[in-house]
């Protein structure tokens, strides 16, 4: 619904500030009359530092047309503080806006500030799930979820792992979900932090638990690869877990070979893993013939495999 201010008595006291775009403006935009006018009133209330209910409505109007406007969000946030609007009210307002502007970054920045102020992530997981139903790999939404994990200490939280699992179950090639899994399981602790100040026995116990976790994740990734041998996400995850646990890539030699015993191989990523195993074991001749096979069966990355062959000779 179009909204104007010049004929609204509630705004009669405001003299709008028109946009100064005189001379030779670059990339001027064919604004609608509605947007031009709303922006004129926005500049005028900003100039007065007015923080009122009608200002909230005006920011809503401008955000609806141009959600990437960087100061209007800040102005709204300060107005909310000024009017002591409860964060939950603001979230209720924000939900439909986020759903209709999936790719907008400012909305998530704003949401983060509001939820931070509320000091509770109640209901957020449900809202995120609703967003991901529309766009399962949305970068902003996953980033926001990870911020939530960090802010509210949800590391290795059963719900977070289950959530990643559910999303991977829906689409084994959802790299965002794989990344989330890695993040909640292995991203939470910085080096040297684990076991700090704990008794020795407990430290051992921790190590044992960590080993079990690594084993479980290796099996989990293998299971996914069995469903989709060409899924780069699952292979990347598998190799990241090995690297994280300081395990050699030859740990998965037998598994990789399951896909490489035919020609053409059933998975280029398995063939690549095979290459890294040979490289790790300094088996130059085997590595070279694997690179030749990769150059043949993976023409998309042929220049890269050719380069690796040259590197092999140099090494």
């Amino acid at each position, binding site marked *: 619904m179009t909204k104007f201010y010049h004929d609204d008595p509630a705004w009669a006291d405001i003299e709008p*500030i028109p*946009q*100064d775009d005189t*001379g*030779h*403006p*670059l*990339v*001027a*935009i*064919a*604004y*609608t009359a509605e947007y031009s006018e709303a*922006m004129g009133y926005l*500049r*005028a209330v*900003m*100039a007065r530092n007015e923080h009122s209910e009608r200002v909230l409505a005006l920011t809503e109007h401008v955000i609806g047309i*141009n*959600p*990437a*406007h*960087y*100061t209007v969000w*800040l102005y709204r946030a300060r107005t909310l503080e000024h009017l002591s609007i409860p964060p939950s009210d603001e979230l209720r307002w924000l939900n439909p806006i986020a759903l209709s502007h999936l790719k907008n*970054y400012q909305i998530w*920045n704003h949401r983060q500030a509001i939820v931070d102020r509320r000091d509770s992530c109640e209901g957020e997981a449900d809202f995120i799930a609703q967003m991901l139903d529309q766009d399962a*790999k949305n*970068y902003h939404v996953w*980033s926001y979820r*990870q*911020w939530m994990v960090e802010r509210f200490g949800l590391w290795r939280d059963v719900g977070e792992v289950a959530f990643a699992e559910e999303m991977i179950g829906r*689409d084994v090639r959802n*790299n*965002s979900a794989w*990344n989330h899994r*890695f*993040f909640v399981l292995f*991203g939470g602790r910085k080096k040297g932090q684990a076991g700090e100040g704990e008794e020795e026995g407990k430290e051992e116990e921790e190590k044992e638990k960590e080993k079990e976790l690594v084993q479980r994740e290796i099996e989990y990734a293998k299971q996914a690869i069995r469903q*989709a041998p*060409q899924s*780069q*996400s699952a292979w*990347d995850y598998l*190799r*990241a877990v090995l*690297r*994280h646990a300081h395990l050699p890539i030859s740990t998965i030699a037998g598994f990789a070979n399951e896909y490489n015993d035919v*020609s*053409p191989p059933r998975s280029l*990523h398995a063939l690549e893993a095979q290459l890294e195993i040979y490289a790790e074991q300094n088996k130059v001749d085997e590595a070279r013939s694997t690179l030749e096979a990769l150059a*043949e*069966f*993976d*023409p*998309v*990355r042929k*220049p*890269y495999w050719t*380069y690796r062959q040259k590197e092999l000779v140099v090494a």
Partner: protein
Amino acid sequence: MAAAPEVGTILHFPRHVKYWRRNLKTHLPTYYTENDTNRMMLAFFTLSAEEILGDLDAALSPEERQGYIDWIYHCQLPEGGFRSSPATDLGTARDDKNAVWDPPELSGTFGALLSLAILGDDLQRVKRKGILRWLSAMQRPDGSFGQILEDYGRPPEGGYDPRFCYMAAGIRWILRSNVEGPVEGVPDIDVDKLVQCIRERETYNGGIAAAPFREAHAGYTSCAISALSLVDRLPLQSSQPPDTRLRGLTKPHLTLRWLVSRQTLTLDNDDAIDTHGEEASLSATYCSGSPPSDSAIPELPWVGINGRCCKIADTCYSYYVCTSLHILGHLDLVNAKPIRRWLLDRTQHLVLGGFGKTPGDYPDILHAYLGLFTLALFGEPGLRPVWAPLSISQRVKEHIESLPWRKQVASYA
């Protein structure tokens, strides 16, 4: 698989010129309103495209050129730095109390400096010291940069991702070359912290993310690599003497592998369905189930580039991935010809000029510019040579370096 016809695979030069002149000289359509507060970057893309096409001098009268320069300077704020658009200009009502709503903005400042340089301005009217002081204040303790500063004393507003590191590094390069430490009494940004910030965003598969442990993304990867290049902190080549400075890309081999793995045969949503979303590095010959009968595999017709693992190709990522590889000295690791054919046959708009995001899309300024720049990186005939770290022409880079005040600053190194 049939080889793509080479006939017709051409850059439709006059149509691109027409597309960019229209962006320059007429009002942009109403749907650009959601980019209203991003106008300085749109201006930069438009001017830079005209520059790379070699059409800028023909397109502008001396009066227009001066008019555009004056318009950009009109967006400069008294304290230094540029607003991104006249949309936030409070005019004569602006004072100390309300200036917070009309602040200098990072992409506005970055785009304004580059646009002025493209127009041949000497940047003498730029409040250099003000910008550099503001830039330092915009850097957070973790090394990242904000987008705007509400006031000195409050933390900067905006994201924590490498886009802002890139623009900050770019502004610093333009205004003070890569001289480290104070210059003319103005402190430097903390370059070590900037490098540290990027290192923390490297992911388990070699790409770079918006924040630590987020998903690897080609846009952030490109911003990070360009930023490291602009502050001269990329890994040393074996031919360079070692030094003790902190450098970025802790696992450069993994990063290279991640970058080349962005090449994909999944060019649109139909492809994604045809192959059951199967990861597209799978060769086409392999997809069809018929292994090649001999070693002479036909050349791939089209190769697209995606921005994240298991996503479809998108024109803008051709730029992000190829500039990254170019800066790392490895543009030869991707399939130049099939990538070129993908851009020209599939995402170039044959009627309007420019490039769209995916096949069949209308062109938009961002994708049209980035697609054109990728072709220039590969040395497309008729386009001017380009300089990847700031995505400008080589000529504009040399113009910036030739400015007397900048030569003076650079001599402090």
